[in-house]
């Protein structure tokens, strides 16, 4: 699980990075500067196409990102769950009950996430290129980025990750080795002034 979580967070940041990427064809997109006074919020719809059953699992929720608390990824339906990632800890909650808690002090993976986080915010693609090959192209609607893993460990998580976007990213698709496909659609992303979170 730890191994998978480490991978997960790496890709997770990748998606976030892509989320805040404005349209810039053929070149790796430049990222907006997130200051201490801002935070990014938005909604998502996730559709997971299963390889073994003719079923599509759909979940919905919202997310928030700022420099103080990191990212909150909140799934609202069909289950209620929340994932919090910051430079000091990784915590996940289900029905307000903590399911997972890893401190950066004992889990350096959390510190690594923070590193990638900084890399993303400062537009440092080198950190991510350690894990993935990147290919960027322009489409009639906007831009398309395809990422393929460099090593076997990363390939165990996904064969490929595709990003599509116009001004912001619109959709991320993950092709998993099991044959499952996860598509995340983003909606109403906006930059707003930072407000301290009330919980935790």
């Amino acid at each position, binding site marked *: *699980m*730890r*191994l*998978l*979580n*480490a*991978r*997960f*967070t790496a*890709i*997770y940041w990748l*998606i976030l990075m892509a989320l805040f990427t404005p349209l810039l064809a053929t070149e790796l997109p430049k990222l907006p500067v997130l200051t201490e006074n801002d935070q990014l919020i938005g909604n998502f719809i*996730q559709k*997971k196409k*299963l*390889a*073994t*059953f003719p*079923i599509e*699992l759909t*979940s919905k929720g919202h997310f928030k990102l700022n420099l103080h608390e990191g990212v909150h*990824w909140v*799934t609202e339906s*069909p*289950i209620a*769950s929340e*994932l919090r990632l910051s430079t000091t800890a990784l915590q*996940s909650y*289900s*029905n307000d*009950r903590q*399911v*997972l808690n890893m401190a950066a*002090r*004992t*889990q*350096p*993976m959390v*510190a*690594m996430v923070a*590193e990638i986080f900084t890399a993303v915010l400062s537009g440092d693609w080198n950190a991510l290129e*350690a*894990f993935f090959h990147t290919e960027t192209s322009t489409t009639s609607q906007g831009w398309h980025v395809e990422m393929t893993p460099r*090593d*076997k*460990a990363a390939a165990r*998580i*996904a064969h490929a990750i595709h990003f599509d976007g116009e001004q912001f990213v619109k959709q991320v698709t*993950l092709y*998993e*080795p*099991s*044959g*499952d496909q*996860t598509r*995340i659609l983003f909606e109403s992303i906006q930059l707003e002034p930072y407000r301290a979170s009330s919980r935790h």
Partner: protein
Amino acid sequence: MLPAATEKATESRQWQKYIAVLWGLVLVALSGLLGIKLYAGNTIDTSLMALFPNQQHNPIIQRAEQNLAARYSQRLLILVGSPKDSVARRHAIALGETLQTLTHVDQVNWQLGDFAESATSNAFFSRYRFHLLNASTAQEITQANTGLIRDRALQALFNPVGSGYSSALLTRDPFAIAQQNLTGKSHIPGLTFDGKMVKLANHQKTYYLVFVTIEGDPYDLDVQHQIIGAIDQAKTSTTNTPVEWLTAGLIVHAAQGARQAQWEISTIGVGSLLGIALLMLLTFRRVTALWLTLLPIASGCLVATAISMLVFHKVHLIAFAFGATIIGVSIDYALHYLCARSSQPCAAETLKRLLPSLLLGMMTSILAYSAQAITPFPGLKQMALFSATGLLAAGLTVICWFPLLTGGKHWQSSPPAFILIARLRPRWRLVRITPVAKTWLLLGCFALGGSLFFLRGQDDIRLLQTSPKTLIEQDIKVQHVLRQSGTGSFLLVKADTIERLLQHEETLSRELSILRQQNFISTYDALSRHVPSAKKQKENVQLIHQLYALELDRFYSQAQLPDTLSDQALSELQAAEKQHLTFYEWLKSPVSADDRYLWLGQLDGHRYSLITLTDADAPATQAALKQMAAKYAWATFVNRVDTLSELLGNYRKHMTLWVLIAVALAIVIMILRYQSAVWRIITPSLMGSSVALLLINSIAGGINLFHMMGLLLVLGVGLDMGIFLHDASHRKETWAAVTLSTLTSLLAFGLLALSKTPVLHHFGLAVLLGLSTTWLITPLMRYEAGMKPPQKEFMK
């Protein structure tokens, strides 16, 4: 010369020739035998266990130690640390890549075996996912905390990416039990994976692991040179950057030992050889004299090795090494002969005059050394035979060959060095024994003898460790952070069947888990953690049934999945539960490669296994483990440090006792010859030994086996000294011989006191202190000029 005398001389010369040829034939025959023995191979024993008396010789403990040693000897763990993550990572990768190209490196891993995931191992563990249910999930079920398991599974299902939950799991293993089982395997705090590498971090530093499996013998100098050389090179490349290198593995210590030995051979060894050669050449001014002094030692070692191998089949390396040094005493015989020859016109006459002293000296020494043969310790028995036969052969070489080899007229010349040595002899001596002197002497002896009762034994094996403290501390640190089990102590479990064995282990596991919670130990490893007993596996499957009954329907409904999946999941559970994991299937599978050493096999109808412990060295922990094992007839707690220290102590006690008995016997024999004058012969060596013991006791904090071995040498040389001096009425040639023999022994063995290898240092210290004191006291025992020493002429 009269014709009759000439005839007689020719006749005796003839005789001497026969004897010399005969002795030569014996030596040739024995070297032939030795050659055959050596050709057959496997005649030197190096196992420490071979030194235990037979009753204490436990083959299962031996097997356990072999398994642990094999594991430790082929592994090399390197942690590369730096405050900057990227710096540590870069250096670790660079080192790993360099090591990978070496011929003596089998493989370089970036992960410890336990964490290496592969498709085969995943398939294997996935097949037995329910039987191998891990302890923490099992606890969640028994403590009615199944909601948590469901929530975790749901979250994994809906996580956007990378939770490892694929749709194939939905009916096969909806609660991702297989994944949980794998998670439970790594319990190293601070350890994570960064890419393919294992990474460890604390407050200040990040460490990356390079895990090397060595191809070849870690004691092989080539192997050491290649691997340690590469690491040293990497280290020197970072001297100016704050990079920390931590290493653990037998090869590091072996290389350090070899380096130390090489350094000491090139300093102490060469120094003592040069010293002895220079001494001989300056004294006798003849190269042949140097060869002659070495000849008895060489032939003594040859005969001793051949006979020991005939008698014992295998000679222990330690017996060989110390036996050979004791044979070094025989340099005395050659020196006394050569010194006596220098003032004698005839070689045969020289031998005739020297023979009584030579025989008596040999007899007492052989007696002293062979006394150890009666002890129950195989090592001492071998040493006894080795040194006794060696001394005998060395003496015979002098008797049989020297008169012929020194027939030339030029051997009769008193070298100027003799006069110098005689001049340097202290002028003071014990004149006449007045009642006052007697009282003082007796009082002194009592004081010295009494103080011997305050000597302490110091047998802690850890004090004899060759490696420097920093290396040992690194080893402990690496083993601690990576939770590698130590080899110092372990538990043995015994049962009639495998199932029983695993059940016994599970009983101990419950107690060990408590000890772990109480921080007595960091962790432990046992077979049953990899293959639970059939009983336990059945219980685990029952727990899964319990989990399904409570949570399965809720899981599907919350995920908005069709409830038909529920029936499918149950039938897959029923299919999986039919076949549990058997011990032998696990043992044969490649997944057990890293853990097979825990299995010790069968002996006399019993099955045995090993439980390893991590961070179990604290005295409180040792006591707790001892207490725990004592509760069960089938469990044994083995502490190698204690066992080895106890062994050393027993050897020391036996050695001391038998040395005392041997000295007493030697005194009895000498009384037959010297009557009341015997005190003049034995006092120097006894006082020398006592003074040495007292000094060592205060310097080293106690006496150990190797001090006693040194004293054995002191007694041998010291008694010879007394006998020869007494018989020759303290003539200047004899004094020169005694001084030369002391100096050569001090150069050969006393210099070892400078060694950093503890065993050699202790041995050398005893020789240095004992022999020099003996030599200083000896001139005191001279008679006044004109006073005839009393002695029985029992040899004519």
